[in-house]
């Protein structure tokens, strides 16, 4: 004796059967490929694949003063800095209306090729306000130019780093007296990728990317002058 399902179960079964039929009809190779592509895009998005690779300053790994910070190909060890009005050994004159923020650093490139001075300079940025000659025009806080980098030994500007040859240097920012010279400065070290570009001949350092941020304590903090 065959029992028939009650009427309340007959309707869902019919719906399931109709859906299965519709799904089977849609399972053409073209639709399956489209579905696969959509899945790949969705999974890539879910895993963060479409987010910018550059981290916000707040998300950057923190380095410490006196320890090596790696921002490939650059390795930098920053030391406690100081704020001065002038420095005879570094050839920094006393300029009305501004002072200097000096951060000693040991710099090395681990790439098998030299790093040019301009590339090296752009590997450093800071959160100092009121940067003037070396860093930015006064008041332009968005400007991201790096510091002047001088040889610690004889104050000659560093015009490049040689592979695996540590260079003792001093990072110099000039800051307006109008801005407060803080007790610490956040220095961000940027890395690069050596690659060719469709826009230029040959390979070069591209893709400047913030890699690590170091809070450098400064001796000689002062409040900003009121104008």
């Amino acid at each position, binding site marked *: 004796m065959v029992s028939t399902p009650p009427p309340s179960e007959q309707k869902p079964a019919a719906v399931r059967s109709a859906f299965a039929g519709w799904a089977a*009809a849609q399972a053409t190779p073209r639709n399956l490929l489209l579905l696969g592509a959509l899945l790949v895009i969705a999974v890539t998005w879910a895993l963060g694949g479409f987010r910018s690779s550059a981290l916000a300053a707040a998300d950057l790994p923190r380095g410490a003063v006196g320890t090596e910070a790696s921002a490939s190909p650059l390795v930098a060890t920053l030391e406690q800095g100081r704020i001065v009005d002038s420095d005879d050994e570094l050839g920094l004159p006393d300029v009305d209306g501004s002072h200097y923020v000096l951060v000693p650093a040991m710099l090395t490139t681990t790439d098998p090729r*030299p790093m040019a001075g301009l590339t090296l300079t752009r590997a450093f940025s800071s959160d100092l306000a009121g940067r003037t000659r070396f860093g930015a025009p006064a008041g332009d806080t968005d400007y991201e130019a790096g510091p002047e980098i001088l040889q610690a030994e004889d104050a000659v500007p560093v*015009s490049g*780093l*040689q*592979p695996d040859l540590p260079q003792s240097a001093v990072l110099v920012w000039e800051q307006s007296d109008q801005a407060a010279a803080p007790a610490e400065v956040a220095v961000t070290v940027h890395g690069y990728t050596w690659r060719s570009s469709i826009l230029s001949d040959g390979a070069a350092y591209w893709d400047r990317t913030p890699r690590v941020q170091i809070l450098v304590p400064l001796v000689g903090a002062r409040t900003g002058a009121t104008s």
Partner: protein
Amino acid sequence: MSAPQTPPRSRALSAVAAGLALAALGLGSWVNSAVPSVRDSVADPFVRTGAIGQSVALRTARVEVLGVDGASVVVTPSGAASHSDSGVWVVVTVRIEGDREPVSLSGVSIESADGRVYAQSRSDVPAACGEAQPHVPWVCPIAVEMPVEAIPGAHVVIPVNGSVRGDAVAEVDLGIDAATAQSWRERSMPLEVPASAPEEAPL
């Protein structure tokens, strides 16, 4: 009315075609990455090798490495001393003579035995020279800072007018061994680097 059904044979052919297309794309991508591009090939330099004291003919000039020396401190043409913190200044003296047009030396580098490249790193130490008029040879000291351990087996790469892309360059073995490199590091007297000048002029 139901939609026309795709015959199983046709479906199989479509799948095979799609598979072949994907395989072709993969193969093309692999070949593209494995074979140098035309752009890379065009950019490759034409290397002419030589030895110290031997003239090497390039496209527009002849160059000759006259000698090589080194020290941890050099005195630049301005009279200032330049120290190498942890390395050695390698000073290569190059003679250049243009054939048909003015030529200069720039972009000179020294390549270590393991392929690391060293070039000018300080603006106050000479690493370029010229412009030399045709058949007026110049003698140019080129100073490059290197780690001691990178010096043995190194060779100098000399382009003319700074271009190594698609042009002739000279590669000259400097013939330096580890003991010589170490002796340069320990040298107490600074090495004087003269200014570049035409060969006839006193250096």
